[in-house]
């Protein structure tokens, strides 16, 4: 399992692996927002938590179509399916690798972008916490979407259509935590619900992803 994780990380960091693309996308989306809504700092401060969450979500989505498709094309998935590792673990590891290469950098970059959007001081802490708790769910749910569309040519657009509705609860609770944090309100309830969604997704969705992958491999 560790070998698979290390390989995926190594592939991401090597040339052409796409590491940093998600991060750059996150940066550019955030920078585009003031261009579209205007530079008033109160307005930006108010929408900052939501914009940052949406940007992180889109950056996650963008990097999903490489998650399994590359392994599918070069036959690695066939070989992994006949390896001693259960497919459930394989997809979990893949999701973890995706989170480390995409989710974690987003969490770390978010405060910097928060400065650009005038996020109130008390909001930074909860923005980071909410992204830290929420991005694993984004990766795991995204892996399910990637597994659904892995055999399809030009599956990327379809995958967005399938994954986005599944992201709704995570997005609502995540940005609610960030928003309430920024406004100095109590965050406990949405925070617990967000953590619950992440935990349940991580625990259960790999089974669905593996089942879907088995169907696609046959």
């Amino acid at each position, binding site marked *: 399992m560790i070998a698979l994780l290390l390989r995926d990380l190594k*592939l991401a960091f090597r040339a052409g692996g796409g590491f940093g693309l998600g991060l750059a996308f996150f940066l550019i989306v955030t920078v585009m927002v003031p261009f579209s809504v205007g530079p008033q700092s109160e307005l930006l401060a108010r929408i900052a938590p939501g914009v940052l969450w949406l940007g992180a979500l889109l950056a996650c989505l963008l990097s999903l179509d490489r998650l399994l498709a590359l392994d599918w094309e070069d036959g690695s998935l*066939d070989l992994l*399916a*006949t*390896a001693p590792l259960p497919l459930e673990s394989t997809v979990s590891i893949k999701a973890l690798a995706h989170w480390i290469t995409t989710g974690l950098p987003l969490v770390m970059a978010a405060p910097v972008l928060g400065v650009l959007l005038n996020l109130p001081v008390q909001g930074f802490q909860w923005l980071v916490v909410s992204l830290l708790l929420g991005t694993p769910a984004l990766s795991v749910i995204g892996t399910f979407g990637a597994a659904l569309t892995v055999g399809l040519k030009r599956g990327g657009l379809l995958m967005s259509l399938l994954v986005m509705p599944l992201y709704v609860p995570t997005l609502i609770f995540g940005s609610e935590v960030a928003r309430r944090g920024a406004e100095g309100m109590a965050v406990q309830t949405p925070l617990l619900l967000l953590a619950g969604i992440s935990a349940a997704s991580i625990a259960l969705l790999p089974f669905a992803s593996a089942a879907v992958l088995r169907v696609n*491999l*046959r």
Partner: protein
Amino acid sequence: MTLTVTDLSVARGGIPVLEGLSFALAPGRALILRGPNGIGKTTLLRTVAGLQPPLTGQVEGAEDQIAYAAHSDGLKPTLTVAENLIFWASVFGRNGIEQALDGFDLQALRDRQAGALSAGQKRRLGLSRMLVTGRPVWIMDEPTVSLDKTSVAMFADAVRAHLGQGGSALIATHIDLGLEADVLEVGPYKAKPPEIDDFDGGFL
């Protein structure tokens, strides 16, 4: 461990292609599958490898015993030859790739990125992967595609050595590998279309 296939029918895209296949593959033996293109050799191999469920019949002795080599080699172009092999070795819980590198004359290429290899060299690397898995039953689909004569001989030697150690091999190929092997012509097992009147009337 003997690989036993009993009364197997396989389907591709929901349509039966081969039916009534039975064979046994004992340790130390090789079985060559032959048949025209599109008859369903790949489907049969994928079914035996457990990648797709059989329509009817059983495959015994395959689980956690087989190493599968398909048309594509599962190589990552940005990893070196050695890194690719080490990865597959550790997925199968083993280490030591020297024997595999030696067996397919890849020592000189070990630090080259797999993306920079020629088609034949990639294929050799893909085949050497079989050696690092440590699995006794090799299932191979057209293993000699894009190999030159020397490499084919190299491959045949590797299979022979594998059989000598008590392994077995199930190979779909059109060329003569010069192996002591049984040959199974799959043409006669071509599936007849099912009766229109059965339960799912005319669906399959």
